[in-house]
């Protein structure tokens, strides 16, 4: 009847559910047996006189008080299970979710972002802090017995401790329009080792992209959100930045009249200190990505920008094979992330 239990508190939810189920079965059978039984036992006979029973106060009290007691019991039982699900433990890892029509964006503590694919380590509590960019969505993981609306303009939260390895289904449970039923994601509960690997490489697809940095860079362009401001087809996104098409190796004019060569250093500087040099005709609105990009991700982006350039020989060479960054020290990454975001 219920999906497999994937989280630590799913068991309690299921117990309450099953208890209610059996209580309902018993009550329903009682009602059904009476209704059908009486209809049969006292079926119509012409001339039979029925007793004139107007009421029985004792009975009224009994069948008000017993259900009341049952209800009080159910309420507290349900409250107990829910409290557990409502309050996330302090040590929980925090993953941010931004939902929009009709995709899921996950951001991990170190700034890694994924879309429609969520990785969490097994047996560690994880807490989601969620918000929406457009309408209300709802983060629903049936196996975890958890669900919470994602409301634009504010943050809501949800947490669970995944206990079962493997892929679980994430689905949007608040009506959000045409793609509502296609707004799905995969939640993969990994062993610690797998999760570490995912964290280092920033995506499980890493293995496939090692030798194709430009494609890897394109993926980062989508995932890191560059695509919201930078087009790759030469058009200018309103309220965004310059298109990346054809900028590699070009002498870009800045708003103070300087001319700057778009090369590896300049791109890295733009990522980390975007306000340092502002391209002529644009506003200084680009957020800093300092601490949010791994070196192989930067390499990928550079290769990608280069691949869009009209002058194949311009600028310094971009990498053709990606190398992994050195293993991060635990704690450092998260710190870097926080610093990077501080204004």
């Amino acid at each position, binding site marked *: 009847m219920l999906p497999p239990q994937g989280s630590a508190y799913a068991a309690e939810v299921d117990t309450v559910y099953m208890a209610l189920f059996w209580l309902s079965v018993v009550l329903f059978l009682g009602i059904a047996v009476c209704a059908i039984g009486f209809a049969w036992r*006292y079926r119509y006979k012409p001339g039979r006189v029925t007793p004139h029973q107007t009421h029985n106060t004792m009975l009224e009290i009994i069948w008000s008080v017993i259900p009341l007691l049952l209800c009080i019991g159910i309420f507290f039982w349900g409250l107990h299970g829910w409290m557990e699900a409502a309050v996330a433990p302090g040590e929980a890892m925090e993953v941010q979710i931004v939902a929009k029509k009709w995709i899921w964006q996950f951001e991990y503590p170190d700034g890694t972002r994924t879309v429609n694919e969520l990785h969490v380590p097994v047996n560690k509590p994880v807490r989601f802090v969620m918000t929406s960019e457009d309408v209300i969505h709802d983060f629903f993981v049936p196996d975890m017995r958890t669900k919470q609306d994602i409301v634009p303009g504010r943050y809501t939260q949800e947490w669970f401790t995944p206990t079962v390895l493997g892929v679980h289904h994430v689905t949007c449970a608040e009506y*959000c329009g045409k793609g509502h*039923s296609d707004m799905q994601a995969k939640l993969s509960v990994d062993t610690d080792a797998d999760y570490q690997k995912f964290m280092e490489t920033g995506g499980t697809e890493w293995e496939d992209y090692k030798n194709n940095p430009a494609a890897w860079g394109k993926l980062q362009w989508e995932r890191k959100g560059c695509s919201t401001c930078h087009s790759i087809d030469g058009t200018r996104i309103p309220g965004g930045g310059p298109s990346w098409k054809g900028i590699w190796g070009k002498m870009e004019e800045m708003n103070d009249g300087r001319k700057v060569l778009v090369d590896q250093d300049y791109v890295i500087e733009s990522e980390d200190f975007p306000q340092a040099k502002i391209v002529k005709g644009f506003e200084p609105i680009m957020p800093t990505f300092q601490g949010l990009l791994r070196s192989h991700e930067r390499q990928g982006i550079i290769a990608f920008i280069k691949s869009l350039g009209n002058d194949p020989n311009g600028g310094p060479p971009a990498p053709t094979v990606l190398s992994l960054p050195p293993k991060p020290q635990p704690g450092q990454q998260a710190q870097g992330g926080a610093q990077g975001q501080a204004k």
Partner: protein
Amino acid sequence: MEHTLTTQPHTGDRPRPAKNYLNAEKGIWSWMTTVDHKRIGVMYLVGVLSAFFVGGIFALIVRLTLLTPSHKLFGKVLITAQTYNRVFTLHGAIMVFLFIIPSVPAALGNFVMPLMLGAKDVAFPRLNLASFYLWVLGAVMAVCSMIFGAVDTGWTFYTPYSTTTDGAVTLMTMAVFVLGFSSIFTGINFVATVHKLRAPGIGWFDMPLFVWGIYSTAIIQVLATPVLGITLALLALERVFSIGIFDPKLGGDPVLFQHFFWFYSHPAVYIMILPGMAIISELIPTFSRKTMFGYRAVAYSSVSLALLSFIVWGHHLFVAGQSQLANVIFSALTFLVAIPSGVKMFNWLGTMYKGNISLETPMMYAISFLLLFAIGGLTGIFLGTLSTDVHLTDTYFVVAHFHYVMMGGTVIAFIGGLHYWWPKMTGRMYKEFWGQVGAVIVFIGFNMTFLTQFFLGSQGMPRRYYNYLDQYQPLHAFSTVGSWVLGLGLFLTAANLLASLRKPYDAPDNPWGGTTLEWQTSSPPITHNFEDQPVLEKAPYDYRPEPVAH
């Protein structure tokens, strides 16, 4: 099973008056300008049944779309996601606002309640007609919004989706606004009628329980519906002028809309069920030929349900971003409504106990109601419980829950009541056999359609889904087949009733041996209801053979 009438009509031998309310005046104009509550009731009946029919067709389309996850019929995708969203929105909106809310009170209640009170009409006959025309206007606007660009918000119109989607949402909200006023007018009218137009000798506790139910409903209509009105007005303003109350981009709060909406719409579900329960409280004593057990308890439970219904609305917002404290409070209060509902249930069973029960069509519907409402109500408890609701909310479990209470509860009771008062309203008897067959098919089809959905929902199938995972396919297919059985039963029932209209007047004044006042007048009643002012001699539901000494 008996196919003949099991009760001798009390007054069937009285000569039938030549003129009754149906043929006293002729011509369409005489209907359109009538202020006779019976005629208005009949017009409402035609209206709401048409709405039910249209809503039902949309429901069948919904089910047909969900037959397979590929949505292919004869190798083609006939319904796209966009269309599907519009279809279920219209299904929900039509069923709720055009059909079920006016169904029992405005159609049957309008016809029967003044008769039960021994009154000549409702308190404000012209207001009554105005209410009907507002309903018509609302229906026309709803249909227009369907034609000019459809609405895909779901019947709940949640912001900010409803403020940003295109289509004729503004027109639809205005339609519902108008329908709300139609409902308010009915409510005002009925409260005043019950207070002031009871015939001599009818005290509060001499009123039939149907009147108690309608009265409680009318209280909710008066006190809750204005909030729906203002909510929808705000929504329309938000769309047109971006006033920014519900829109987070302009500093508003989308959850506020949900509070506003459910402050009306939870009480509204009791606008739906109370009249259904009211009908059952008539059917069970009549067909058990036994006095109502616990009359006062049932009467009080109607009023207390009406009042309690105002303080539980937050149970629709458990995962909506409402504060945790509010969740706890609303969950606790939600359980309170189970008590009066249970009191009713048990008193109905108590009435059947040691009765003299015959299973004519209305009684078959009454027993269906007992079973189906029990399931619907008990699953409401799953939803009121915090920990289980988090899993079940916005899944098919909720869909199944509310169809069990609305379709299995109210609509079943409505159809039962329709059969019960059909002879009084039309003067014709339908074919008992086909009525019973219809009742059985409806019962089976209904359970096939919606029992499956509890399992779908528990497994995690979200509602308002056009696409779904393959694992849910068998249950969805079963449900779809069930909807065809259900549709068949309803068509049969409708055909049976309509066929009876071709006969000459043949219904006795009191075919079922009812004790309430409406059975004392002729079938169909005369224009002013009673030849002489009726006087209540004994309490309703008194089935003792000898009249009690007064």
